[in-house]
């Protein structure tokens, strides 16, 4: 997919911004806080329905304005489609494709895919299981339409169960309610576990190759899915096992006021040369591994969805050394990419490549290089 034209109105610091991006590489160069990340954020909202930053839609609206709008002409499978996202203070968010309202994000995701690489991603290896679960949830959501929906429902019911656990009520009729929750959780949970396992299997094949290339054949990277039911191949069997597990843990859950079992507790162990990367890897190895994960994310989407996603890279070049920058750039051939950077020196990595270069300043965005460059 490619963005042919983009219009951003009343969005954060922008009144009106119009761009005709390059089909391959687009670089936005500007000082910190100049507004370059906002452009990427607008793209992510239009394509995935949500911002990759944790902000409320209301905060994104330019101060004093009533609504913001993002429009784009996007080419998908050789068809050009008009995308439009409007947010009004009173009417909330509305997304349209070719003037038809999109009522849920599942429809939006059907034709689109987006990958974001930002500095916080480098914490995936070091940080808690939360980030690792999020990485794979985002990936699987890009590959399977039902996954995000089921995950969402699972989280809603989990919250209801946890709220009830906090009330520490062990009476019989409450236990019946827990049973009802557990039945739903095991049904949705078994789908989640099954898909996490299935996707990871293919992902591991890809990342082994990618990382071998990045490490010049010296390192083997693999990721292990840590869930007690991951060895079961049949979704129905997983559901039964999970339900038993949830029933057995009810007493403990009541004591701790928290659901101790289920895929929301999943962990992924990232192993480099058979050893746990988090504990035994150097920072350089950890960064290379995250880079491999991102490149593999791109590869698996291209392969499974038979389409090319849009790639946003927000200020990551300053976090990578020359070799890793080179590897990253090698892997985005044919992918429409939007890159922000604060320093000019990384520009030389892109010499002789098909690209548009934009300078982002307080008074606006100026295109200084690329196709149809104004003199």
């Amino acid at each position, binding site marked *: 997919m490619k963005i042919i034209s983009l219009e951003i109105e009343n969005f954060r610091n*922008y*009144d*009106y*911004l*119009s761009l005709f991006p390059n089909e391959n590489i687009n670089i936005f160069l500007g000082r910190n806080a100049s507004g370059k990340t906002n452009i990427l954020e607008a793209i992510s909202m239009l394509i995935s329905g949500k911002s990759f930053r944790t902000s409320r839609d209301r905060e994104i609206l330019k101060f004093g304005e009533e609504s913001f709008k993002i429009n784009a002409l996007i080419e998908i499978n050789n068809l050009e489609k008009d995308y439009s996202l409007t947010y009004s203070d009173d009417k909330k968010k509305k997304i349209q494709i070719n003037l038809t309202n999109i009522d849920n994000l599942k429809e939006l995701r059907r034709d689109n895919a987006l990958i974001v690489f930002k500095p916080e991603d480098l914490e995936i290896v070091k940080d808690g299981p939360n980030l690792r679960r999020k990485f794979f949830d985002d990936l699987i959501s890009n590959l399977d339409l039902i996954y995000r929906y089921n995950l969402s429902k699972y989280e809603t019911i989990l919250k209801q169960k946890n709220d009830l656990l906090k009330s520490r009520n062990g009476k019989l009729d409450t236990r019946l309610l827990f049973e009802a929750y557990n039945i739903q959780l095991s049904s949705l949970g078994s789908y989640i576990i099954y898909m996490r396992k299935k996707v990871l299997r293919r992902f591991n094949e890809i990342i082994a190759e990618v990382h071998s290339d990045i490490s010049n054949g010296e390192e083997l990277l693999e990721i292990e899915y840590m869930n007690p039911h991951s060895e079961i191949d049949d979704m129905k069997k997983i559901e039964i096992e999970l339900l038993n597990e949830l029933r057995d843990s009810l007493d403990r859950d009541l004591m701790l006021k928290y659901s101790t079992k289920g895929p929301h507790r999943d962990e992924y162990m990232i192993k480099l040369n058979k050893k746990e990367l988090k504990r035994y890897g150097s920072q350089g190895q950890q960064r290379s591994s995250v880079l491999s994960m991102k490149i593999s994310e791109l590869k698996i989407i291209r392969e499974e969805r038979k389409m090319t996603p849009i790639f946003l890279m927000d200020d990551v070049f300053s976090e990578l050394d020359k070799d890793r920058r080179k590897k990253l750039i090698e892997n985005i051939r044919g992918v429409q990419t939007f890159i922000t950077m604060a320093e000019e020196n990384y520009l030389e990595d892109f010499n002789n490549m098909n690209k548009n270069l934009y300078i982002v300043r307080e008074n*606006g*965005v*100026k*295109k200084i290089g690329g196709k149809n460059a*104004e003199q």
Partner: protein
Amino acid sequence: MITINIDCEYIELDSLLKFAKLVNSGGEAKHFIKDGFVKLNGEVETRRKKKIYKGDTVEFDGECIQVV
């Protein structure tokens, strides 16, 4: 007099009319421009994709738009 701020080098004439909320749709903009109801810096402009730069003035429907 309406002042419109743009953050890029130019805005196309039909987009300007829409952004300034002087028309309801691109289709309306196209017709008004084609039929000669819009002036750029004092002269009638009938090309809807005409690039309007900072400093230009556009007139339509009794309204004057200053682009900055």
